[in-house]
């Protein structure tokens, strides 16, 4: 029981991170209907920015953790959203209105490009930083197992919840959210009604990138080791999460992320860890067979 609880906490932490990245996929998909394969690499770039920022702080002898975290988050969000913007501007905007597959290939190219840029400019070696937040607390102690929650795990879950609420508010309550939703439903009509579609799309990419940046900072804090390759797996998992939850739906992305995190940790807890990705994809296939548009996705009714 205690063991299961520990695995639950592990799963939630991992799932929160998948969820944060998945929201980026889902928002971009919602608005321009494309899979932004470079999103995982945007996340990777953000982790590198975070490492640089943390190292700078360490050099400047900043010891207050909240201060350091806030600084790193702001820096990382700023630069990462610049990357999100630039990727959209360079690789996707010229392709708007062409076939569905063109931006997909361009995105794959962008992903390879970003990965190699980082490898060249930052080096192929892994980047470790010393633990930022150490320690944790015991939740429950049984004779044969002690459940421990790290402060950093708690931080990740709390920040994810905050981000979730902030985003729901942003999308449902603000003028930007309205523009974003209207572009999602009918881009032509939205532009006829005076909404600057280009700007809305750019902003969506920047928002997606900001969330990836938050995830990037969290990864740096929690795992402490990053390399230029982390974007690939995280991207695929997060994309799977977005589809599982129903692509285009924000709560769906979060739910999908959490589910995948939980599936992974419970599968490796009780069954064979080496087949955990098979389990993830098999469950995805099953869910899609029963609900072709994901768990919380709006069923796609083709008007005949």
């Amino acid at each position: 029981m205690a063991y299961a609880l520990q695995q639950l906490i592990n799963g939630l932490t991992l799932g929160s991170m998948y969820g944060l990245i998945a929201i980026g996929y889902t928002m971009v998909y919602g608005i321009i209907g494309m899979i932004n394969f470079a999103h995982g690499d945007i996340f990777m770039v953000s982790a590198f920015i975070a490492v640089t920022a943390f190292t700078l702080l360490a050099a400047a002898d900043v010891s207050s953790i909240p201060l350091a975290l806030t600084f790193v988050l702001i820096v990382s969000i700023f630069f990462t959203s610049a990357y999100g913007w630039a990727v959209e501007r360079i690789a996707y905007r010229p392709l708007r209105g062409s076939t569905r597959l063109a931006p997909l290939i361009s995105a794959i190219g962008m992903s390879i490009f970003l990965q190699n840029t980082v490898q060249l400019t930052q080096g192929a070696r892994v980047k470790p930083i010393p633990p930022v937040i150490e320690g944790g607390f015991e939740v429950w102690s049984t004779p044969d197992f002690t459940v421990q929650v790290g402060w950093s795990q708690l931080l990740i879950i709390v920040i994810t919840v905050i981000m979730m609420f902030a985003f729901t508010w942003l999308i449902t309550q603000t003028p930007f959210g309205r523009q974003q939703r209207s572009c999602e439903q009918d881009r032509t009509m939205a532009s006829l009604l005076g909404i600057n579609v280009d700007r809305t799309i750019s902003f969506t990419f920047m928002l997606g990138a900001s969330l990836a940046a938050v995830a990037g900072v969290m990864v740096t804090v929690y795992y402490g080791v990053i390399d230029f390759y982390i974007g690939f797996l995280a991207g695929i998992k997060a994309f799977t999460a977005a589809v599982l939850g129903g692509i285009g739906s924000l709560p769906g992305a979060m739910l999908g992320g959490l589910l995948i995190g939980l599936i992974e940790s419970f599968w490796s807890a009780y069954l064979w860890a080496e087949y955990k990705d098979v389990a993830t994809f098999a469950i995805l296939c099953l869910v899609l067979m029963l609900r072709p548009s994901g768990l919380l996705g709006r069923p796609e009714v083709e008007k005949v």
Partner: protein
Amino acid sequence: MSTVVFARHQVTATERFRDAGWVAFVALILGIPLIGLTTVDGGGALEVETRFGVLAIFVVVSFVGRLGLRWLIDTMGARKLERLRDDSNKSAGISPVKVVNILGWIALGASIALPIMYSDNRYVVDTATTVLIYVMLGWGLNVVVGLAGLLDLGYVAFYAVGAYSYALLSTQYGWGFWEALPVSGGLAATFGILLGYPILRLRGDYLAIVTLGFGEIIRIILVNWTEFSNGPNGISSIPRPSLFGLDFTRSPAEGEQTFASFFGIEYSPMHRLIFLYYLILVLALLTHAFVSRLRKLPIGRAWEALREDEIACQAMGMNTTNIKLSAFAIGAMLGGFAGMFFAARQGFISPESFTFTESAIILAIVVLGGMGSQMGVVLAATLLVLIPEFGRNFSEYRMLLFGAAMVLIMVWKPSGLLSHREPTLRLSRGGAAINDAVKEAAQ
């Protein structure tokens, strides 16, 4: 219709500079964290190193590059307009179809002559063989994605099935290349149907992720099921194909003859390489003939119709389930053949050769080439294989160039390098009269 307005806003120098300045500013922002700053290992902990010199160069290059690019685009645009203006009364020169056809024949001639011209150059023959493998894979995937419009991100699974089935049949049961060929293809096709069946209801991107997952599942199973596939160690010593029983070895096996001894020539390892090259060339040409023929048959037209409008297909009484499955099966079978050849040529396979990146590259070949265009696949495969090979001389920038090239080609030609679609059949009549008629009707 109204007349086309040819006039265009003239860009002033100030605007150009402002535009380039903006680009340079963005370059600066993007450059600071990745170029301007870097972390290096300073004995147990990271230290930040600054490279503002390099950053400055990067920003200046962006500025100048943008100015140049803008100027180039504008001049090209102006020239294009010029040409449009000239052409608006005349008809176009040679049709693109003819050009592609001529190119096709040239490419065929070149590919037949290549090993003769480079008969002592392993590298060229071998790289050309790689190109042809990708061409074949591209043609196979073209059936699924280009013709039937089903987005498949896990095509490498069938490639793996083909490769492993030959590897296992030959190393475990002593089958030869030619006996195993139909079996490998058949197995891959079966997998195509097995994958296709449960996911027929899925559309577009949902299909994409499930196929991606399928590709990964196959790879993970190959890695983990050691008893079956020898896991990550892969399978080595896979026998090479023979030419009607003639092996390409230095010394013949008991009671057999080698290629060299049969023809009474001196043994050279190049013989096998050239043989493999011609083998894949023949396989690829057969694939081409097969797919081109299918395209002109009811099944091929049904695939294209499916890509265009699934609902309308149903309304015409077409069984879309069967059509989709046949596309999956035939695409998978061709992938299986290519995989089998790959195994025979490498002599060694391991799950590392069947990753998602491979699927992505094959898909990129189809899309860059122009969906559904057979010649486009050839062009794109050649480019995508040769770009990283060129890069070998500046090895670190190799994959960087590759990624950048994918983005640039797509932005430059969003519908692919050769996007012209040739009708599968024509009503035998001239073209000019129709053009006039359409214009008349459009007014």
